[in-house]
């Protein structure tokens, strides 16, 4: 049984978003910092039976500071959460985000993380599928330059049968930036008929940019379909030449190809912008 009251809040900057059964809500949370102070944010989200929440989180600011975000999400039976996170913090900031998600029967969670800010960011998710026919999707875009580092650690537990999970990451890395993706799918013995997909694609714009990808599958059920893949490459020189030969300046052509590379991630999040 998932809770319907907030868990104890761990910081002063907190929000409790509660969508009652059958209702639907759109919530826009913006955390813009200009005070160079550290911040601890606790977000507690409960979406009850048959309820829908569209949540947009935006982070930005100036100066040097740390942001810690702790997030607990509970999705009850048939609940739907569409979650967009724009992380566009100051380039001197450290941004940590710990997310825990519990999903009941036939609930659906889908998220897009647009990760552009911070010198150092860590997105750490534990997703627990504990009701049958629930589904979760984690999509992420990393756009990093200079010495930025971004790490995503996603662990999904398929505790019951007939659930689906998806992890799709696209990273565009310039200069000396470092991207890291660790995606883990843990299928319990009871998690028959699990369907899980995982893909990380990286585009390196400079010879000194680095991408680490570590897929992990831990499977104890014998009737599942789980796959994972990863690619790391550079802009296609032939495509670039084709565009330039039509009069498109090199920087515009590169941006067209970069946009093309990440465009798929916006499916379902058409309003989102870089």
């Amino acid at each position, binding site marked *: 049984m998932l809770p319907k009251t907030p868990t104890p809040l761990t910081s002063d900057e907190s929000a409790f978003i509660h969508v009652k059964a059958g209702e639907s809500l759109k919530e826009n949370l913006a955390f813009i910092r200009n005070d160079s102070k550290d911040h601890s944010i606790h977000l507690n989200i409960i979406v009850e039976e048959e309820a829908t929440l569209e949540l947009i989180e935006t982070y930005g600011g100036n100066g040097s500071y740390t942001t810690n975000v702790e997030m607990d999400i509970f999705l009850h039976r048939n609940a739907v959460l569409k979650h967009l996170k724009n992380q566009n913090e100051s380039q001197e900031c450290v941004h940590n985000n710990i997310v825990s998600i519990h999903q009941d029967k036939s609930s659906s969670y889908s998220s897009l993380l647009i990760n552009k800010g911070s010198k150092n960011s860590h997105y750490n998710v534990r997703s627990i599928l504990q009701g049958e026919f629930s589904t979760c999707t984690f999509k992420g875009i990393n756009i990093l330059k200079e010495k930025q580092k971004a790490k995503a650690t996603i662990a999904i537990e398929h505790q019951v049968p007939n659930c689906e999970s998806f992890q799709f990451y696209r990273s565009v890395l310039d200069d000396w930036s470092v991207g890291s993706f660790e995606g883990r799918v843990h299928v319990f013995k009871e998690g028959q008929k699990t369907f899980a997909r995982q893909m990380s694609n990286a585009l390196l714009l400079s010879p000194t940019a680095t991408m680490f990808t570590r897929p992990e599958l831990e499977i104890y059920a014998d009737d599942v379909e789980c796959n994972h893949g990863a690619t790391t490459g550079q802009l296609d*020189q032939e*495509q670039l030449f084709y*565009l*330039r030969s039509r009069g*498109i300046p*090199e920087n515009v052509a590169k941006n067209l*190809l970069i946009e*093309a590379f990440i465009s798929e991630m916006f499916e379902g999040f058409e309003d989102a912008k870089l």
Partner: protein
Amino acid sequence: MIKIKNLTVEVGDKQILNGLNLELKSGEVHAIMGPNGSGKSTLSYVLAGREGYKVTGGSIELDGINLLDLSPEERAVIGLFLAFQYPIEIPGVQMTTFLKTALNSLRKARGEKELDSLAMLKLIKEKQKLLGITDDMLKRPVNVGFSGGEKKRNEVLQMAMLEPIFSVLDETDSGLDIDALKIVAKGINTLRSPDRSFLVITHYQRLLDYIQPDVIHILSKGRIVKTGGAELALELEKNGYAEFIENVA
């Protein structure tokens, strides 16, 4: 219009063009024919400014401007266009976005006013009709899922949109059935005018039945070995390339 003088080009360590001379005047259509490996595609890529082709000697001028000093996009700005033998697929970039970006980039670089979406759409509609390009093709990413014929028609569509003064058509006829060939030829013929020139690179005489060139050149081992009128193509058709190649060897 275009003057190529004594052009020598290396790819890797291999010399491909060996002192090529070619001159086209405004309004002329020239064809270059030659066997595989004679340097036809190298010539087209060198003209368009592709990396990996090292010009070791000679010059190329378009309307008095030294092409070899210019980037591929700058060459397009002064009016050069290459219809690719193998058009490149670009997943994630829609056809209309591509056409719009290309035309407006050229207009901007030339100090002309950029076209708004409506004017652009009107222009695309007008040109697509000419080439039998469906709305569906324009909704797809550039060349993705296009048949061989559709890709070639798309090259000519781009040419019609960008209105270059000097177009190089690199084996635009290869892989086309006769109906597609007629559409492509019609597209090219519509663009013919006293201030535009075309260099049609082809392996076969077939395309020249539909696009009548003023001059035909035969390329062999990186150099032009014979220049003549339409009768040259017919002669080739009958006797093949053998006698011309032997002449050089």
